[in-house]
């Protein structure tokens, strides 16, 4: 894939990529922009290469997920050195929007990260469980387990039950 073709693909998937970066960064907007930017740098400089084994979307989302993990680790290390480390939970659902969407965000914030990511990829990005597994570097079996558990738990939280 030539650099020009890569750029066209990145532009095509830019908005979806940003939505995924937000999901990977606990809905912290500034962090999501930084992660997306760093992911573009990696791809354009050839540090992350698209080998064509999967779709470009799966590849891009994988790079975004890895970059978000790296940023999280770096930030945790910095925090440890400076003695300011605290666990970073989801950003509070302060965006304006319908109550249902805010309830969804609040419910998602109660799920483990992996489960949240699988649900995001399947329901929000329209991926199959297999594509979600490739993006998250998981086996299809464990992605399916995460998916089932997350769905049951989310339905429980949204339905007012204890999951």
């Amino acid at each position: 894939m030539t650099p020009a073709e890569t750029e066209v693909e990145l532009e095509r998937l830019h908005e979806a990529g940003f939505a995924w970066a937000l999901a990977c960064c606990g809905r912290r907007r500034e962090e999501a922009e930084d992660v997306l930017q760093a992911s573009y740098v990696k791809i354009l400089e050839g540090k992350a290469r698209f080998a064509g084994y999967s779709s470009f979307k799966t590849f891009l989302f994988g790079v975004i997920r890895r970059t978000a993990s790296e940023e999280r680790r770096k930030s945790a290390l910095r925090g440890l050195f400076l003695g300011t480390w605290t666990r970073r939970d989801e950003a509070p659902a302060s965006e304006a929007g319908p109550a249902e969407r805010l309830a969804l965000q609040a419910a998602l914030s109660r799920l483990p990260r992996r489960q949240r990511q699988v649900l995001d990829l399947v329901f929000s990005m329209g991926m199959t469980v297999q594509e979600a597994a490739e993006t998250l570097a998981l086996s299809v079996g464990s992605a399916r387990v995460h998916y089932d558990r997350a769905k049951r738990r989310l339905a429980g939280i949204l339905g007012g039950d204890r999951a």
Partner: protein
Amino acid sequence: MSGKDADQKLARLFKEQRRADEASAPPFRELLARARARSAPQRRQIRWPALAAAAIAIVAAVLLLRPPPPEPSRAVAAATLAAWKAPTDVFLQTPGVELLDRLPVLVSSVPQATLAVSHR
């Protein structure tokens, strides 16, 4: 609510969320320009640590791969070993030690003539 209904509700909520997220995405060109601007100085910064690491690696390789100092030849080593005397040898020199260096001369107790007669 059946499983299918729950799935449909989740799908609808996620889609709404995604639409809202996508609508708030920063412009692609702007982000790309920032990414390019960020990557250029990084390349220059990376050069110094890389050079320092390479220099350290070269020095370490030279120190590790340097041939060991030549060993003395076997003949020289043998001569040195033979000439060596223990500093405590002096304690082994006791009075009368010279008696142990020669054989004692024993005097015959029976005269030779007597022996010759008895044989006959």
